[in-house]
């Protein structure tokens, strides 16, 4: 009898808990909306990448703002924590299962070719405020379309890379922020005080090393084209090899800490902010953490453009395409577009870019004094507007471009540890880029 009671109790518990747990969740099809009527209630799903608490507050505010402006639209906002790799893994699984969101903010060329993104040319061309969006960024985003015409992401900002330098350290050795590479290497040497565990430079040898090294070597050589007329990669040109020799072989472990071999950005930032390194290379996205770490004391640090190349002019990496993309399977594209338009409005764009340390795509927002007057954002504005600064044609459009960079990271560590020559590294790199480029071109012909 007792046993029967136990079995009945167990069964009831299982059924009740099943009902409870499934009831707790609304199993949503992320991009599902049953309506196409613009006045009907609509829910738009938006997954934002690499969201921290501070960023989540912005997105929560934006979701409320959307509802205020469009009372029939509810923005179901998910701030995905973690890095871009985590975000991509989550999104890829959702795409395969058909539960991907309506809006994403990590623009990837492979998702253009696999049809996940919606071509937004029609929406954009019919938008009254399209003239406010930075034309260069529209052009840059269109490079992800193999035909070069489709707009698969609405650009909301641009991000420039720069050096972060300890101005107080440079002052102590009577040097100014280096504006050419000989000065750069001299400063690195002079700032190093190994006995006190202080180094002139921190080199990124861990995750993301290839990206940084690539833009620095081109900044040194002054070469602005990645491929010559015959499709040969320029990455292994003599000046790039010379730079890698100076940077990874001669400087690493002599004027840098040995553990730079495995440093990613978080470790690099720690080295800089805790007084272990005098110069690091990153983008303006890290500005907020710099200001916080140095408690707003701008006498200690500053952002600076890259030193002038051996050709005499400054070269920066081409602006990476980024923007909001629309899911091509979205059931309520008009509502999605309204949310995107609002995201690009002056108010939202300004707020977003102040938080993220990026330069607004909305040209009205870019006029905000924050961007021209801020000690660090003004550097980004200078990089983008100074006619003497050149950008190279970084092939972000190659679907395997970031994979090649990831593949090269182990080779970079081999060079740092003396197991590979710079020439060999760059020859391998050139071969990989050429193969990817040929593959891309042959796909275009089909």
């Amino acid at each position, binding site marked *: 009898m007792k*046993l029967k009671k*136990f079995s009945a109790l167990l069964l009831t518990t299982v059924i009740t*808990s*099943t009902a409870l*747990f*499934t009831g*707790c*969740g*609304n*199993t*949503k099809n*992320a991009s599902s909306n049953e309506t196409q009527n613009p006045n009907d209630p609509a829910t738009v799903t938006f997954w934002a*990448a*690499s*969201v*921290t*608490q*501070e*960023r*989540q507050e912005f997105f929560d505010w934006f979701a409320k703002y959307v509802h205020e402006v469009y009372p029939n639209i509810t923005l*179901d906002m*998910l*701030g995905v*924590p*973690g*890095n*871009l790799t*985590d975000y991509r*893994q*989550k999104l890829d*699984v*959702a795409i*395969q*299962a*058909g*539960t991907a969101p309506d809006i994403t903010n990590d623009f990837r060329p492979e998702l253009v070719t696999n049809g996940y993104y919606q071509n937004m040319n029609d929406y954009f061309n019919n938008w009254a405020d399209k003239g406010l969006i930075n034309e260069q960024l529209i052009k840059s985003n269109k490079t992800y379309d193999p035909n070069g015409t489709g707009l698969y992401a609405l650009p909301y900002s641009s991000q420039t890379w720069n050096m972060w330098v300890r101005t107080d350290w440079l002052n102590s050795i009577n040097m100014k922020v280096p504006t050419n590479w000989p000065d750069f290497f001299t400063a690195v040497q002079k700032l190093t005080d190994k006995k006190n565990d202080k180094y002139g430079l921190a080199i990124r040898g861990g995750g993301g090393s290839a990206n940084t090294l690539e833009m620095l070597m081109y900044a040194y050589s002054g070469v602005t084209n990645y491929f010559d007329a015959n499709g040969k990669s320029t990455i292994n040109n003599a000046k790039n090899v010379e730079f890698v020799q100076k940077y990874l072989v001669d400087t690493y472990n002599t004027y840098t800490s040995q553990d730079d071999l495995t440093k990613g*950005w*978080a470790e690099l*930032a*720690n080295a800089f*902010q*805790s*007084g272990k390194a005098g110069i690091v290379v*990153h*983008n303006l*996205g*890290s500005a*907020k*953490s710099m200001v*916080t*770490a140095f*408690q707003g004391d701008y006498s200690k640090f500053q952002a600076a453009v890259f030193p002038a190349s051996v050709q005499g002019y400054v070269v920066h990496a081409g602006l990476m395409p980024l923007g909001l993309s629309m899911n091509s399977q979205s059931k309520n594209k008009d509502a999605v577009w309204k949310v995107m338009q609002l995201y690009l409005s002056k108010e939202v764009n300004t707020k977003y870019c102040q938080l993220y340390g990026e330069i607004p795509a909305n040209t009205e927002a870019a006029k905000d004094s924050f961007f021209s007057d801020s000690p660090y954002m003004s550097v980004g504005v200078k990089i983008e507007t100074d006619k003497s600064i050149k950008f190279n044609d970084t092939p972000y459009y190659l679907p395997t471009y970031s994979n090649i960079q990831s593949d090269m990271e182990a080779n970079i560590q081999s060079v740092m540890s003396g197991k590979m020559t710079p020439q060999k590294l760059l020859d391998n790199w050139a071969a990989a880029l050429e193969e990817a480029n040929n593959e891309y071109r042959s796909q275009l012909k089909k």
Partner: protein
Amino acid sequence: MNYKTKKQIAKISFVYIPLLIIVIIVLIPFLWALSTSFKTLPEFTSETIQYLPKKLNFDNYIFVWTKSGFAKYFVNSIVVSFSSVIIISLLCICNAYALSRYSFKGKNALIIMLLGTQMMPVILYIVPMFSVFKNLSLIDTPLALIIFNVLLQTPFNTLLMRSFVNAIPKEVDEAAMVDGAGKLTILIKIIMPLLKPGFVAVTAFGFIGCWNEFLVAFTFIQTQKKFTIPVGLKSMIGEYSVNYPALAAGSVIALIPPVILFAFIQKYLIAGLSSGSVKG
């Protein structure tokens, strides 16, 4: 130096000192995290290393608990982990009893299959299970995590529990049968009370596995308020910066339930693990 003194010196040199070193190695990261959790960000990034915070500052705990949503994540983790562990334990007892007491065709193959599931990385299951769960309308529900946890944890824990059931002599079952007890009665009234150490071991392993599970929770949950603690901890790691003091505070909070659990079950766990290891 007499024999007794020599023996004591040898014991100190070869047992206590190595053990002390191991304890220090194990404790240092924990103590470091604890110390960091009470530091302010400027203290943490200070040019001179500070081993201890200047004062006990609870701001990081308040930040993660209130602003970062850890209060919600904590409850979610508790619900998912405890529910999973209850199901895992029940299933493991039944599975282990069957594998220990019954002979049936394909038993060895089943045991190898259970072992085989442990060799495959979880990421391999993610996409097919996501599609299955989507069709069952389970995506973005705690039940999805519970089912997945049960699927992941049951095979290993079944094999662990089997060794405990094997350690109970079959004569105990037979004596009960002579007294008229059925199989279910034997399992519930005779075997289960004797399996206390095994139950504790399975609970401990199962709970830790469920509590720390990240990949499935990160992939299957699509609403922030349903995140679990390991996913929530990720929000301390930004794209360009890491809030280490807050991350440390979050980690310390995440440690509390396992520490409490282990404090309660420690004596059973040690007895359970040793008995399971020698009788199989």
